[in-house]
């Protein structure tokens, strides 16, 4: 019921059979297939090079399929880099940020959408203004706060500011505002308090919104690079994104190794996208229509 908005656009389209539309889709296929090839090529190339030997990866003309495909680069990555630890760090940061945003943004979003309290519009305006300010304007003071909390070079330090989000609050507010009021009123008539109404009635209804927020937060957090680069300095403390960023120069000659590391770093998001495609797309579309 709650995602009528995201599905409505597709579902409500009338299928008229009266007018026969003649379409020649041949050129469309040609363009789309060619385009797909360009879009996917870098990813495929990355996997191929990761299976090559170092000599093959540096030869000209390029080797398009290795003579002896080998996973040696993948085992080498685990030996030469604390990559398992970095993946764990990335996971911890992502889980913490996502959990924080789910709790805090849905609470605040619900309050802004449905509760009446003095200063509501002022506070909402203040929250929204955060969205207008580029990230660079926060980073130096944020770093100093993390420094004064002695959280430099820790995953907690990387995660902390991202537990809160003006964007997430706005997204959840829009979602709650679009839900029907009837169930909520019925719950209140039955004597449910604010917390129960929120947790037992509204939160389940807002599931698609929570899923969208989760996907967007996980994606942003996993791939985030600048802030982790600022907060962490040691390879063993870095999330995988910052580690790959700092390695670009050093090991750059060992292409299969670099590509193997990159494939490992990207795989979780690609798998997540493959599994939750519909939710990814609905989440982004929601942002476009209501954000």
């Amino acid at each position: 019921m709650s995602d009528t908005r995201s599905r409505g656009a597709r579902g409500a389209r009338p299928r008229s059979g009266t007018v026969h539309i003649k379409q020649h889709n041949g050129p469309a296929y040609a363009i789309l297939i060619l385009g797909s090839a360009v879009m996917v090529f870098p990813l495929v190339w990355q996997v191929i090079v990761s299976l090559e030997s170092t000599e093959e990866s540096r030869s000209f003309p390029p080797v398009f399929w290795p003579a002896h495909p080998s996973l040696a680069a993948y085992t080498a990555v685990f030996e030469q880099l604390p990559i398992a630890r970095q993946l764990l760090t990335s996971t911890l940061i992502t889980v913490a940020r996502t959990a924080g945003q789910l709790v805090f943004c849905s609470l605040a979003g619900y309050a802004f959408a449905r509760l009446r309290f003095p200063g509501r519009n002022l506070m909402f305006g203040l929250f929204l203004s955060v969205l207008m300010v580029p990230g660079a304007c926060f980073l130096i003071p944020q770093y100093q706060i993390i420094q004064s909390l002695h959280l430099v070079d820790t995953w907690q330090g990387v995660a902390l500011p991202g537990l809160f989000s003006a964007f997430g609050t706005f997204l959840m507010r829009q979602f709650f505002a679009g839900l029907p009021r009837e169930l909520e009123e019925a719950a209140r008539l039955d004597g449910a308090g604010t917390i129960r109404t929120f947790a037992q009635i509204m939160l389940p209804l807002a599931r698609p919104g929570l899923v969208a927020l989760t996907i967007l937060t996980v994606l942003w957090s996993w791939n985030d690079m600048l802030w982790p680069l600022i907060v962490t300095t040691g390879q063993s403390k870095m999330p995988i994104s910052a580690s790959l960023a700092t390695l670009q120069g050093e090991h750059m000659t060992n292409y299969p190794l670099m590509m193997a590391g990159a494939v490992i770093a990207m795989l979780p998001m690609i798998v997540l996208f493959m599994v939750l495609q519909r939710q990814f797309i609905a989440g982004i579309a929601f942002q476009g229509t209501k954000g």
Partner: protein
Amino acid sequence: MTALTAAGLAGARVKGQPEPGGRPVGRRRATRFIESGWGWAFILPTAIGLGVFYIVPAFTTIWFSFSSWGAFGGHEFTGLDNYRHLVTDPDIGYALVNTLLYTLMLLCGIPLAIYLAALINREKLKGKGVFRTLYFLPVVTMPAAIAMVWRLIYNGQFGVLNYALSLVGIQGPFWLQDPRWALLSIGVIGVWSSLGYNMILFSAGLQAIPKELYEVAMIDGATRGQQFRHLTVPLLSPTIFFVTILTIINGFQVFDLIFLMAGRSNPAIDRVQTLVWLFYQDGFYSHNMGYGSVIAVLIFLLTAVFTAIQFSVQRKWVNYV
């Protein structure tokens, strides 16, 4: 009475049930008071978090922009020194131009995204899902990871791109080291990685356009090109506006790709450094946080001005149905 929300009214009634003889106005006021309490309680964590990590820091950055930092901490008020330095710093000039050029390149990706979204949304097209997946894949890739393969593709000696060009008899340049090509090469990656995202937004916009309009246009003999120009584009204009704003904001903040594709020692660094890249170099690499702050303020002003311009000209071309 009219000022009450439905929820508040319902709450008042519930409260009223145990003691029907009480004064309704007083009870309503009490309910309102309780609701206010909950309202504040619900926003409190976010208010504190955003206050501490975003709202106060934004003002701190402005304050820092008037100060200078020693190498080992400690800063002093230096008035407009940073601002004076800013307007005479040639790096800032380069970075400003590069940031604008990069954003312009991203904007060029918007018509492409509309066109491809329109193709995918064609009625009888098969494999929509597959195409959507393939075009969206770059969006989920980690910039730090994907930059590696792009560097290899762009490699002047043994890159695939120059190999492809050599097949048609062209000797390709060292893309990332050549001042004429470096920014363009990075811009292509920017378009590549945002195309799928924009296509999803445009697809949603296209699906909201009633199909009857196209049928009517068809009967009136409008060609597909005419339909696209006179029907699709105007009806899609709110989405185009939204994507344009988003693209400009993202473009002005480009850092990852620049940092990853061009190192400090890159011979073409003048032609690729952007404002956020300079911000990072000055603020964190050189620990000159005062000057970093001034660059942050500049990025903010730039974003504010361009967003304001966008909103003021939108009335001329955006159709809200």
